[in-house]
């Protein structure tokens, strides 16, 4: 068995089977179980290393050839696969609680396998095509067959499609720049192309307008999945670029551009989140601020920046899952998720309210929660570089905190006569409970992430060394 077959072909095939053969009832368990098993295999069996299981020698081969190109997953990819498939399992099990149909699990598995293929493909540049294909598979999750497509989904499709040519061209131009580093014109052109490509992929200001729109018009759970999966792999793809091309790593202007884009996204995301009166839009702006944090981490001129980037990526997945799940529970009661419609729901949905509040506070960098350790690490490095920029990050986080306080206030705002009741199902309560426990564990014992974080930087040959 080779690693690409195990973590790319197999989940894709199971996704196709679930789509055509299974009903909603079993899809969450089969999809979630598949992702959980793949996560465990990645954690237990190192790729390309022979292991003796009883009397049987097991070795997962690292590569396969496909149309003359190689798909390769190495030993260093193991922890990434374990973390990614583990979080994917949580998303898929969550579909049972969120009430989303089997289409989510089947398409989700296909998306996850395509995103895995994007880190495996050689030359790595082709990842842009796989990211685009994954983005296209997200659309049926966002727009159900009975629903008119809104502006958000159309913009999302346009921006993702426009990103791909920019990145593919820039990759070709960068190879030329490596050959003649003194050619300033070519360097500027390649840098601009690359910047535009990633601006579309990361939804950098002002290209993030589709995210709040999508949160209003689509299922919060599907949109949350999109906001988790695509930026995660885009970040790894971007780190691949920095690793591969020396001049990208060493150009201070580029690092500044990434840093300032991130700061702008955090500050604007936090500011706009504080002004929203719609729970979905608040999540959208919080997710934008989170992507900003990723960009700031990547733009740091520090040897620790790869570790900080990965430290930001792992809790982000958990926060978004819990938040999106809580929102989808509210959405069944109050379709629009406007403040006026969700007012006082805390007494009816206490578990969802607590989970949503904690996920939100975690994203705002509240101590003891999963989001705090990465933000602390980021602030420490950023403050050493620029106090002004640190202040802007704090302003953004303060905006998210204000939004959290407003959300909690609205959810608990009800008359005294209303009695407390636990309306959530046991599956919903259990999923939210597991998520909340995870938020606390990652916040209080961040060393729990150490097995993943220790070897993730070895994914990159030159970065952080």
């Amino acid at each position, binding site marked *: 068995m080779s690693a690409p077959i195990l973590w790319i072909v197999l989940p894709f095939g199971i996704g196709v089977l679930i789509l055509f053969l299974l009903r*909603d009832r079993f899809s969450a368990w089969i999809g979630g179980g598949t992702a959980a098993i793949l996560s465990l295999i990645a954690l237990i069996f190192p790729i390309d290393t022979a292991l003796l299981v009883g009397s049987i020698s097991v070795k997962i081969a690292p590569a396969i050839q496909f*149309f003359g190109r190689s798909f390769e997953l190495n030993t260093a990819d193991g922890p990434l696969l374990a973390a990614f498939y583990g979080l994917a399992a949580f998303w898929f099990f969550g579909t049972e609680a969120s009430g989303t*149909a089997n289409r989510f699990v089947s398409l989700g598995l296909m998306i996850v396998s395509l995103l895995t293929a994007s880190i495996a493909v050689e030359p790595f540049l082709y990842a842009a095509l796989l990211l685009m294909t994954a983005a296209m598979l997200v659309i049926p999750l966002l727009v159900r*067959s009975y629903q008119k497509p809104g502006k958000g989904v*159309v913009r999302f499709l346009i921006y993702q499609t426009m990103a*791909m040519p920019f990145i593919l061209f820039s990759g070709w131009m960068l190879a030329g720049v490596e050959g003649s580093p003194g050619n300033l014109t070519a360097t500027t052109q390649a840098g601009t192309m690359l910047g535009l490509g990633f601006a579309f992929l990361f939804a950098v200001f002002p290209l993030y307008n589709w995210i709040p729109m999508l949160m209003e018009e689509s299922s919060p759970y599907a949109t949350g999945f999109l906001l988790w999966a695509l930026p995660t792999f885009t970040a790894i793809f971007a780190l691949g670029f920095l690793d591969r091309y020396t001049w990208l790593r060493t150009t201070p202007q580029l690092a500044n551009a990434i840093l300032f884009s991130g700061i702008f996204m955090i500050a604007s995301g936090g500011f706009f989140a504080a002004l929203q009166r719609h729970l979905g839009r608040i999540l959208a702006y919080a997710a934008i601020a989170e992507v900003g944090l990723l960009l700031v981490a990547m733009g740091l001129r520090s040897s620790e920046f790869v570790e900080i980037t990965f430290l930001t990526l792992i809790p982000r997945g958990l926060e978004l899952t819990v938040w999106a799940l809580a929102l989808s529970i509210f959405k069944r009661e109050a379709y629009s998720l406007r403040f006026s419609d969700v007012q006082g729901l805390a007494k009816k949905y206490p578990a969802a309210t607590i989970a949503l509040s904690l996920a939100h506070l975690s994203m705002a960098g509240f101590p003891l929660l999963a989001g705090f350790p990465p933000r602390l690490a980021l602030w420490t490095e950023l403050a050493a570089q620029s106090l002004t920029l640190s202040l802007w990050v704090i302003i953004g986080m303060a905006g998210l905190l204000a939004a959290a306080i407003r959300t909690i206030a609205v959810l608990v705002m009800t008359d005294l006569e209303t009695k407390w009741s636990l309306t959530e199902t046991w599956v919903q309560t259990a999923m939210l409970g597991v998520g909340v426990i995870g938020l606390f564990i990652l916040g209080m014992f961040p060393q729990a992430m150490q097995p993943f974080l220790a070897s993730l930087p070895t994914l990159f040959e030159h970065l952080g060394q």
Partner: protein
Amino acid sequence: MSVEIISWVAAGLILIAATTILISADWRISLAALAIQYLAAFWLVTRHLPLAMGTVKLIAGWMVVAILGMTRLGLSELDKEEMDTFFPRGIWFRIVLMGVVTLVTAGAAPQIEESIPGMGIPVIAGGILLIGAGVVHLGVTSSILRVTLGLLTLLAGFEILYAAIESAILVTGLLAVVNLGLGILGAYLLVAGSSPLETEEEL
């Protein structure tokens, strides 16, 4: 020499087809123009790629045209009216925009040929024209069908240029998948909202 002439004819066809897609109110004419556009793009792509790989792009393109045509044909009268209200509006504005794209192409193509020798001016011109037309199209419409046509036009232009610098089979295959995927998505988004609720959960 004859190859060069045919390449220029292909570039001219691209200009006409892209302008037609942009200004035509009738979806049938737009899709026919898209099919012609793919034929011209096929010729320009085969300047740098083997015939078989160029054929993959042509077939994928025509399949997209067929998918979109069949879907559009099946839509109800109400849906058609709703979609057609956008056209015809500002035809001259669109023609002027295409004029600007043509001027930019005329200015940029020789310069690109200078920095990447061997691509061929008709190939570059065809590619830039389609990218420009695609961007213009995306800028002036919000109709699902028109947006899909704009994205396909933009991608076709990119493929012409990219074929000159990258000839991997995997890339050709994935680009064909992306084209087909865009066509299928366009068709899905066109019919979304017009089908009744089916499953228990949807109800």
